[in-house]
């Protein structure tokens, strides 16, 4: 190191012996590749979610048959060239049913995530800004949160006719309290912030404060929460269908396919196996995406959970 060898130094000047590094150098990773490499969960989760969305959209073109076509002569066939994933008790092609089933799961997952976030955001904002409403709303939310969400959805489904819309509604109701609490928490903590205080003091109107200060800060945690809600909604949908309280049996959802395979699972495990794999992978993908988003959006929160 230094400016030159010892010989070239002026007389009387002693150079320190340079220290060697004791560990190999660090190469910082930058750019899109670096981002994906530092957040592998976003890359993997995002890819798998995209894949499932493509499968759902393009199901008719992926060598499928009519998922509801009955073939009583070809019941419970093992997986083969004709029935890639086998056939069920009514001779329907499980491969086609599983691919079309992606539509139901993803629809329910995304719809619940969007509805619950939107309604929860609204309730949370009202609760965070209107003191009078707050205690009443939060009492109700506490009460709702005390009912285990699957039971709440079951109770709601027992009172309505099975349809995809009603399933979405039932699961959404069960998820709203959590979102409201989250948003309310953010609002209350932001209201303590000096710059929000300043905005209030300088006469900024509440809608402006919400748009300028509250919403931008709510977006990150809400997105992460919505991802987790999407994942848990897909599981809840499958559970509801599996126990006969979900989508009507005629619709090929993953829960329904498994419910139909239930009686035969000891002898024909593949009927349960294929939808189970698809469901698990999809939920896993969404959860990975959620974890990755949380780590990337909120480094402080990343350490928790």
């Amino acid at each position: 190191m230094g400016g030159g060898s010892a010989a070239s130094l002026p007389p009387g000047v002693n150079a320190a012996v340079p220290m060697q590094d004791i560990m190999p150098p660090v190469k910082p990773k930058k750019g899109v590749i670096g981002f994906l490499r530092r957040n592998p969960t976003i890359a993997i989760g995002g890819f798998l979610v995209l894949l499932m969305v493509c499968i759902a959209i393009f199901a008719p073109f992926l060598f499928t048959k009519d998922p509801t076509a009955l073939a009583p002569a070809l019941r419970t066939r093992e997986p083969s060239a004709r029935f890639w994933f086998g056939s069920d008790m009514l001779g329907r092609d499980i491969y086609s049913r599983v691919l079309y089933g992606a539509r139901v799961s993803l629809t329910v997952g995304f719809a619940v995530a969007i509805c619950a976030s939107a309604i929860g955001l609204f309730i949370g904002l009202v609760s965070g800004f209107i003191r009078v409403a707050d205690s009443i709303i939060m009492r109700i939310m506490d009460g709702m949160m005390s009912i285990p969400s699957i039971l709440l959805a079951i109770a709601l489904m027992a009172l309505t006719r099975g349809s995809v819309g009603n399933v979405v509604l039932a699961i959404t109701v069960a998820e709203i309290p959590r979102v409201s609490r989250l948003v309310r928490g953010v609002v209350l903590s932001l209201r303590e912030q000096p710059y929000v205080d300043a905005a209030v003091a300088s006469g900024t109107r509440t809608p402006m404060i919400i748009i300028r200060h509250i919403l931008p800060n709510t977006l990150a945690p809400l997105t992460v929460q919505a991802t987790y809600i999407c994942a848990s909604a897909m599981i809840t949908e499958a559970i509801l269908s599996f126990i006969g309280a979900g989508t009507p049996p005629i619709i090929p959802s993953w829960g329904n396919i498994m419910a139909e395979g239930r009686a035969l699972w000891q002898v024909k495990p593949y009927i349960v196996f294929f939808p189970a794999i698809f469901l698990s992978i999809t939920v896993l993908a969404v959860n990975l995406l959620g974890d990755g988003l949380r780590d990337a959006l909120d480094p402080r929160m990343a350490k928790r959970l």
Partner: protein
Amino acid sequence: MFAYVVRRVLATIPVMAIVALFVFSLLYIAPGDPAAVIAGDQATPDDVERIRASLGLDRPYLVRFGAWVWDIMRGDLGVSIFTNLPVSTMIRQRIEPTLSLMVVTLILAVSIAVPMGVVAAWRQGTWIDRAVMAFAVLGFSVPVFVVGYVLAYFFALEWDLLPVQGYTPFARGFWPWLENLILPAIALGSVYIALIARITRATMLEVLQQDYIRTARAKGLNQGGILFLHALKNAAVPIITVIGIGIALLIGGAVVTESVFAIPGLGRLTVDAILRRDYPVIQGVVLLFSFVYVLVNLAIDLAYTLFDPRIRY
């Protein structure tokens, strides 16, 4: 302290009242005519009217609610539409398997998950940590019935180590009872283990950064003493809080697990009630589970002071 306990117990009353009001009101806020839905598609108008009357839907809302709450306080949860038995009797007959399943799962999950989370936090960034985190994500992602089927397929059908299905009452011996519960408990516990392991790891990571952990290390304590005495005791409050909140997962999962493993508990009762559209039974079970959930979390709240001397009431 005593005053706090009283206040805290009293505070759960409004929560329970709202749970009751909510469960009761579902009948009224559900879209469509619940009487017609419950009666089913083949029902005659007479059937629908009969069900409407038995659910009390023909009477004014508040009158009906008052009578219903009064009944509940006396332990009367109504009468099943299908069996005509009191719901409370039906629940009493089915409670043992569910209670057994949940207790075994709770013990199993806590004793697996907490050490897992502790070790993951201690070895943060290593393959052990990654494995625990991967397991946690999987636990959240694979639905309980899928875990149940996979476990039953291998451990019961292929390797014949444990019974496939069913339940043996505790009265017939500890081992036969436990044997039947191991697979369901693992299946039901997978999400719960994932949840507890994750919060344990996260809390421990935070605690391990604290100055008093450095002090403990400077004293010459070994890793075990640091992790399980100095750190874990400090991490206890968030962990037991999540253990309490997570009981909701156990309750929801029990319904499904009992179906997979043919355990004749409250979950089966619920599923059968759904298929028969036996709403009073569903209402009773939901109410019972919710109250249990509220009370367990109350107990946990009150137990905080055992773990943290700084918490004083």
